[in-house]
């Protein structure tokens, strides 16, 4: 393996390649900050450029720079504007945005950068050591297990069940699942719930819904509540650096989530989104009670967990891509196309037939990660200054990016109407104190949940898979525990508090 690393290093580290990785990171970060453009579209845009370079190693280095840059850029818009551009960074906004609101935008960005870097790097090491052995792990999951995994992912909503909002969180999740059923279903191409509207035939787009649930209500809230915006708009950005204490708090989170995220990423079809939700849910359950109360209100653990997990999962998704030639996500599907165009066919023979390419890819990922961190850490104070812009300039800016983000993906103006319609509904729901994140989680996971459930039902001709596949049962049991345990704990705590109060009153 050491030999392999050396081969990779010798092919990857040249002045030209380093220039490529810097260019890739910068382009990726800048475009990735725009909500509508996720890693998938940016890589698709960059492919002709990469193919034009001709040398597969340089091209891959450029693309991996773009990839990591785009992921980092996506977290930036989640944290600063509450506008997650890709499903994988939705969980980043849960705690990242509240942190930014408290004036800790710089700190949040630093934590995001460090978690991303650590997650990506640790996962690259895991990839290097285990890639050949892991190809069988990637094939361990059948549709039945994917279904169960999505159910576990849904249990992330338990994190929002605190402070007596269980009912509301559940209702919003179900609403999200319902919205996910619009469009063509898993079992046939017959349109459902489209009311004959052609634009709804492919269902609601993720980006439109994400903007409508998160970014738009936020902007409208600021418009309607000038007092609040005035008090916050002082533009003070404090606490750029993270203290040693904070570093110690997030270190175990990063360690755990690198491994967990990587293994979830290895499964084709699970990917960064599930990894980030699960990471969030698991870390919340592991946290102490005081820390748990912080989740959703600007917890550094709650930010570090999904950021680490989604980067580790992105790296993990290279395992099925490189060892089996199976793209596990939209982004890796496009990368597969680029690799084939460069005359590299990923598969079991890649490592033996073309070890230089295999190792160059891995080294390229590592360099991409490292350069991204070096480039971005010094820039963070300047990026965070966006929030220091006076609100009356910032709000139109947010509105512009929100509208553009939902238009740009589909080039369809109907998306704007849907966006505004949902945005108004979401603002009303926010006023009524309904959590909107569960809705988005339900929407994202709903389609995958349904597809896999339908397949499992069809393969086993009924519910037989629940009993015949022990892993499915185990995952479903885990989901049940993740949901029930926190509510049980909360209930017990409330009872105890009540009893103590009762005793006190009795005195």
């Amino acid at each position, binding site marked *: 393996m050491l030999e392999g690393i050396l081969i990779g290093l010798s092919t990857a580290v040249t002045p030209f390649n380093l220039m490529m990785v810097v260019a890739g990171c910068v382009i990726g970060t800048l475009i990735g900050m725009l909500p509508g453009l996720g890693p998938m*579209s940016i890589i698709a845009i960059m492919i002709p450029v990469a193919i034009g370079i001709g040398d597969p190693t340089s091209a891959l280095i450029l693309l991996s720079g773009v990839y990591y840059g785009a992921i980092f850029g996506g977290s930036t818009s989640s944290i600063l504007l509450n506008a997650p551009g890709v499903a994988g960074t939705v969980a980043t906004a849960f705690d990242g945005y509240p942190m930014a609101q408290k004036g800790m935008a710089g700190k949040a960005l630093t934590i995001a950068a460090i978690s991303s870097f650590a997650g990506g790097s640790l996962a690259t090491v895991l990839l290097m050591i285990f890639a050949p052995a892991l190809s069988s792990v990637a094939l361990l999951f059948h549709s039945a297990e994917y279904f169960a995994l999505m159910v576990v992912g849904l249990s992330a909503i338990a994190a929002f069940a605190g402070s007596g909002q269980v009912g509301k969180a559940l209702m919003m999740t179900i609403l999200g699942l319902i919205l996910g059923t619009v469009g*063509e279903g898993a079992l046939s*191409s017959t349109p459902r719930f489209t009311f004959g509207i052609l*634009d709804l035939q492919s269902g609601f787009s993720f980006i439109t819904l994400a903007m409508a649930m998160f970014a738009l209500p936020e902007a409208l809230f600021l418009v309607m509540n000038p007092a609040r915006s005035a008090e916050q708009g002082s533009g003070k950005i404090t606490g750029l650096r993270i203290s040693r204490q904070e570093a110690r708090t997030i270190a175990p989170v990063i360690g755990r989530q690198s491994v967990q995220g990587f293994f979830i990423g290895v499964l084709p079809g699970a990917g960064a989104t599930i990894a980030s939700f699960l990471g969030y849910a698991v870390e919340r359950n592991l946290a102490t009670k005081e820390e748990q109360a912080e989740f959703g209100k600007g917890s550094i653990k709650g930010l570090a967990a999904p950021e680490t997990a989604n980067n580790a999962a992105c790296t993990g998704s290279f395992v099925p891509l490189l060892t*089996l030639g199976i793209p596990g996500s939209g982004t*890796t599907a496009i990368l597969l*196309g680029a690799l084939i165009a460069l005359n590299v066919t990923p*598969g079991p023979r890649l490592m033996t037939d073309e070890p230089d390419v295999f190792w160059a890819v891995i080294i390229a990922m590592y360099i991409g990660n490292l350069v991204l961190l070096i480039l971005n850490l010094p820039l963070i104070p300047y990026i965070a200054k966006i929030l220091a812009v006076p609100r009356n300039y910032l709000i139109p800016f947010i509105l512009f990016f929100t509208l553009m983000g939902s238009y740009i993906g*589909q080039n369809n103006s109907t998306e704007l109407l849907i966006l505004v319609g949902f945005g108004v509904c979401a603002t009303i729901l926010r006023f009524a104190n309904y959590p909107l994140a569960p809705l988005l989680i339900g929407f994202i996971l709903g389609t995958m949940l349904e597809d896999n459930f339908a*397949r499992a039902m069809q393969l086993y001709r009924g519910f037989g898979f629940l009993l015949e596949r022990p892993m499915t049962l185990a995952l479903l049991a885990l989901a049940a525990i993740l949901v029930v345990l926190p509510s049980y704990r909360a209930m017990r705590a409330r009872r105890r508090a009540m009893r103590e109060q009762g005793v006190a009153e009795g005195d």
Partner: protein
Amino acid sequence: MKFTRRVMMTAAAAMVAFSGTAQADGHQVLDSIHFLIPGGAGGGWDGTARGTGEALTESGLVGTASYENLSGGGGGVAIANLIENAESSYGTLMVNSTPIVIRSLTGEIAQSYRDLTLVAGTVGDYAALVVADDSPIQTMEDALAMYRESPNDFAIGGGSVPGGMDHLVAAIVMQGAGEDPTAFNYIGYDAGGEAMAGLLSGEIDALSTGFSEAIALAEQGEVRILGVTSQERVPAYDSAPTFAEQGIDADFVNWRGFFAAPGLPEDMLATYQEALGAMLETEEWEAVRSRMGLVNIYRPGDEFRTFLDAQEQQLGDLMRDLGFL
């Protein structure tokens, strides 16, 4: 500010210089083409349109090519848009493929290819049935024997919903082998990659997929190709047997071609056809074609119509048998 503007102007000048060299070749047919892609960036339609545009501009047949992704409604949004804005869209070519036939049969798309000007079919990809390399199934005959023994346990998967293209291909093969095309268990996946993972994990027994994808995986030693839906063996991978030579009547090609707005003037149609026909002969196109693993099948205008009519008949009959219509 001044600096930025100067940079922009330099860039613009460079662009002009670029198209200038293209014109210098002397055999330019058209100044520009706008490609309308009914799906998102990175998909099959996107690759075909951008590959075609790349070959057209690099070979100097066309000055510049621009692209527009307009997804939605399984391609229906783009078709509706092209028809609605017909008169201002004569400079536009829309890429499409077999799904336009299937989706207009099911009513998923309100219009059909008849509502558009047929420019030309340019390339195609045959379909194939594959099994995992470690599967006990060696030939199509083994697969059929296994299916006949316990039809309920034999599942064929594909990267489309039931009633979609991969399902129809599997049904064509089963029908050709004398089986009931409605009886076998078809499992639909969201995308080709997921379906492939399903095959390798042993969830499904066989996979219906595009031949170009099957070649890539067969070369890596991951899958065995049981049969191809072409009449003769395909030179790009001639160790794969055809269904025809195994006595199974299964003829199918997933074509890709270009359409223009209705009412396109005759002379413009002829120019487009000339440009596409000439492009297929160029080296630049050869590079794109081999990269995508497709087969050149050039069918301009009326020939394209005859072919589409026949395919609509074939798929329509099958879908009625399957109960999808």
